[in-house]
C-alpha cells in the first residue's frame, strides 16, 4: 500500500513539475502549455474560493442556523436569515429585462452599509492614529530619534503639500516645498520598488526550491 502511495506521489510530483515548467515557459513566449495551466489554476482557484465562501456564508450563516441550531426559534431570528437570502436572490433578476432593476437593491444594501462601515474606523485608524504616531513628545527621545521623527514629519507635510496644492502642469507653482516632497517620494518609491524586487526574487527562489524538493522526492533523495 505504501509503495503504491509513494508511486502515486511520484506521478503527482512529475505532473506538478511539468505544470510549474509550463507556467515558467511564459517567460519565453505565450504558449498552449501555459494557457492550459492558467485555465487549470483559474478553475481550481474558483472552485476552492467557492467552497470557502459557500462554507462561511451558506453553511454557517444559513443552513446550520435554520436547520440545526436550537437558538433560531422565534420569528425575528428566522427572518434575520430569510431576508438577506431573499435580498441575495434578487441579484439573479439581473438576467430579466423586466425585473432587472431589482438586482440594484442588494447592491444598494452592500454599498450603503459598506460605505457607512468604512467611515468611522478609517477616521480613527488612518487619520487619528497616524497623526498620533507622527506628532510625539520629544522629551524622552535620543537625538537620533528626534531627527528621525522630524524627517518623518517633513516627509508627510511636503508630500501632502505636493498632492494637495500643486496644480499639475503649472510649473510656476512647483516650488521648494513641493520639490522636497518629490525628493522624499523618490526615496520611498525606490525603497518600495527595491523591496518588491527582492520579494519577488525570494518567491522565485522559493519556487526553485519547491521544484528541487519535488525532483529529489521523485528519485527518493529526500
Amino acid at each position, binding site marked *: 500500500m505504501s509503495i503504491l502511495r509513494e508511486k502515486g506521489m511520484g506521478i503527482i510530483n512529475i505532473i506538478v513539475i511539468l505544470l510549474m515548467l509550463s507556467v515558467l515557459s511564459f517567460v519565453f513566449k505565450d504558449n498552449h502549455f501555459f494557457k492550459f495551466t492558467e485555465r487549470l489554476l483559474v478553475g481550481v482557484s474558483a472552485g476552492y474560493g467557492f467552497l470557502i465562501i459557500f462554507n462561511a456564508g*451558506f453553511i454557517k450563516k444559513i443552513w446550520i442556523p435554520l436547520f440545526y441550531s436550537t437558538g433560531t426559534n422565534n420569528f425575528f431570528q428566522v427572518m434575520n436569515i430569510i431576508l438577506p437570502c431573499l435580498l441575495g436572490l434578487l441579484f439573479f433578476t439581473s438576467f430579466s429585462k423586466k425585473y432587472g432593476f431589482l438586482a440594484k437593491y442588494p447592491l444598494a444594501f452592500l454599498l450603503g452599509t459598506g460605505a457607512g462601515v468604512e467611515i468611522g474606523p478609517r477616521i480613527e485608524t488612518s487619520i487619528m492614529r497616524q497623526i498620533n504616531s507622527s506628532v510625539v513628545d520629544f522629551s524622552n527621545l535620543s537625538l537620533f530619534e528626534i531627527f528621525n521623527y522630524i524627517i518623518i514629519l517633513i516627509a508627510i507635510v511636503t508630500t501632502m503639500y505636493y498632492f494637495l496644492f500643486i496644480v499639475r502642469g503649472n510649473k510656476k507653482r512647483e516650488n521648494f516645498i513641493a520639490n522636497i516632497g518629490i525628493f522624499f517620494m523618490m526615496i*520611498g518609491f525606490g525603497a518600495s520598488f527595491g523591496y518588491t*524586487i527582492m520579494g519577488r526574487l525570494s518567491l522565485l527562489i522559493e519556487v526553485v526550491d519547491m521544484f528541487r524538493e519535488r525532483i529529489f522526492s521523485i528519485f527518493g533523495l529526500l
Partner: protein
Amino acid sequence: MKELIALLIVLIGGVIMTLQYFLNIPVLDLIYKNVLDWSIVISTFALLLAIRSLLARQFQDLKFKKVKSIFPLTTIISFFTVVILGLIFGIGEKTPVDFIYQNIQVPLQATVFSLLAFYISSAAYRAFRAKNFSSTVLLISGSIVIIGRIPLGDFIAKITTLHINGSVISLIDFPAWTKWILNVPNVGIKRAFIFGITLGIISTSLKVIFGIERGWLK
C-alpha cells in the same frame, strides 16, 4: 421610483452604519452585527453570480470555438472536480480538496507570482536610470534596499567594520541604511499617502451615501 428606493436603501444603511461607530447605542450595535451577517449572506449570492458568469464565459468559448476547446474544458472540469470533492468530503485538512490545494493551487500560484520577478527586474532596468536628480534618488534608494536585503550587504558591512575605543562602527552598512530608509522617509510618505487615500475613501463613501455618486445605478 425604482432609483429612489435604491438610493434610500443606500442612505439609510450608510447613515445607520456611520452613526453606530460614533454613538454608543445598543440597538445600533445589534443592527451593526446583523448587517455584517447579512452582508456575508448576500455576498454568497453575489459569488454564485460571479461563478455563473465565469462558467457562462467558458461555455460560450466552447460553443463558438473562440479558443481551442481544451482550455474552457479544463476550467469547467477543474472547477466542478474541486466543488464536487469539496461538497462530498469537506474542505478540512487531509481531504481531497486540501490535497489539490497543496499540490496544484499553492505551487502554481507561487510560480505565477514568481514570474513577476522576471518582469519586475526588466522594469527595474528601465526605471533605475540616472537621467535627472529625481531618478538618481530613486536609483540610489532602490539600490541600497536591494543590496541591504541580500547577504552581500551583510558581507560589506562586516568587512568595513571598525573597532574604535570599544565601539563597533560599520562604514558601509547597507542593512542598517535599508532599515532607516524603510522606517523613516518611507514611513513618512506612506503616512501622507494614507491620509490622502483615506480622505478620498471618506469623500467617496459620503458621495455614495448621499446619492451624489450614482454610477452604480446604471
